[in-house]
């Protein structure tokens, strides 16, 4: 969450962050799915994070070749992705408990979901916080809210996005409960 709050304040930052996170998570989890389940938990977790660090080498190298300036702007938040909760906690608690095919799909969907959210956060913050799009000034916008570029703005924006997701979840749950079937049971 911290990289999204602090550095996903432009679309290019969000693009690099999202790409690195998705590739790192996907390949690391696919790789560690071959870890023997008989190994103690401590060793398994260490292997997950070390594998993420090993995957980080080629991925960060490729990303820094393509997006040289953006990578510098991300500072410590790019290498910090090796300890993201998808790798450290969800791998053990969720992904490795599934069959490999389903796991691959689940990890892929998680990565896509995270990527989309990071892009949305980056886009909103850049357009409304900096009045630019991919670094190009948007002359049609006569206002800009600088606070959106700060970590404070990241917290507030993410709070609104989570609230929207929560609202839609509640709405669909209520709708589902209100839909009667012939037998009077809920669908």
């Amino acid at each position: 969450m911290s990289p999204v709050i602090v550095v996903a304040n432009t679309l290019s930052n969000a693009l690099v962050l999202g790409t690195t996170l998705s590739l790192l998570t996907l390949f690391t989890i696919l790789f560690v799915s071959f870890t023997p389940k008989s190994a103690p938990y401590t060793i398994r977790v260490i292997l997950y994070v070390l594998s993420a660090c090993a995957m980080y080498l080629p991925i960060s190298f490729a990303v820094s070749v393509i997006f040289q300036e953006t990578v510098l702007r991300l500072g410590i938040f790019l290498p910090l992705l090796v300890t993201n909760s998808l790798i450290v906690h969800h791998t053990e608690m969720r992904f490795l408990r599934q069959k490999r095919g389903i796991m691959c799909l689940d990890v892929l969907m998680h990565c896509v979901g995270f990527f989309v959210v990071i892009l949305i956060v980056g886009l909103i913050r850049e357009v409304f916080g900096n009045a630019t799009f991919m670094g190009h000034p948007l002359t049609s916008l006569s206002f800009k809210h600088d606070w959106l570029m700060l970590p404070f703005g990241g917290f507030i924006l993410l709070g609104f996005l989570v609230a929207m997701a929560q609202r839609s979840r509640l709405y669909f749950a209520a709708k589902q409960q209100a839909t009667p079937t012939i037998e009077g049971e809920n669908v």
Partner: protein
Amino acid sequence: MTGDYFSSTLVGQMLFSFLLTLVTQNMVFSRALGTTTVLWVIRRRLDFVAFGIILTIITLLSSIAAYFTLPYLLESPYSFYIAPLTYVLIISIIYILMLLITNRLPLKHKRTIRMFVHRCAFNSTVLGTLLLLGSEFKTLTLPSFIGFSIGSGVGFLLAVYMISIAYDRLNSDDIPASFRGFPITLFYLGILSLAIYGMIGHELPI
């Protein structure tokens, strides 16, 4: 003793770094590091003081080890790429040592402490502290490293405390259902973050 003289002493350097990380460069409020863990501790209503102490110990030991490793790491032209691997290796060793010590000591709540050690080790607060210290290595001394890492851990503890005192209200029925829980907590964190930003007056280097 003048302020300048005191800040040049070993104790002064340590205290200065400690206070800096505790308040103005608080890991949670200024860089959002460890936010997920803060919320995890509060949601589960765990003993956050014990958690904070364990996190501080792991951060402190890792940063001391990093201080002696960094000169060799920074010699490499690829230090940017291999830094996470080096730090994770250091943290892994500390992690295993902490678990071994926990198992050996006659502690009352061994299971809880082990769970805390598991959760603290690969946490963005610990790795983030090491990455920040690594990026400022040339300007920092060992006492600064010690002060900075203790400040990170205690700052985390302070953040957990400040969120925990409001958490029940943030989850009460007075809050609209869409905002209740996680979204409003993010707002609250944002406001605290703004307060810290107001105190510093500028953005921190990342």
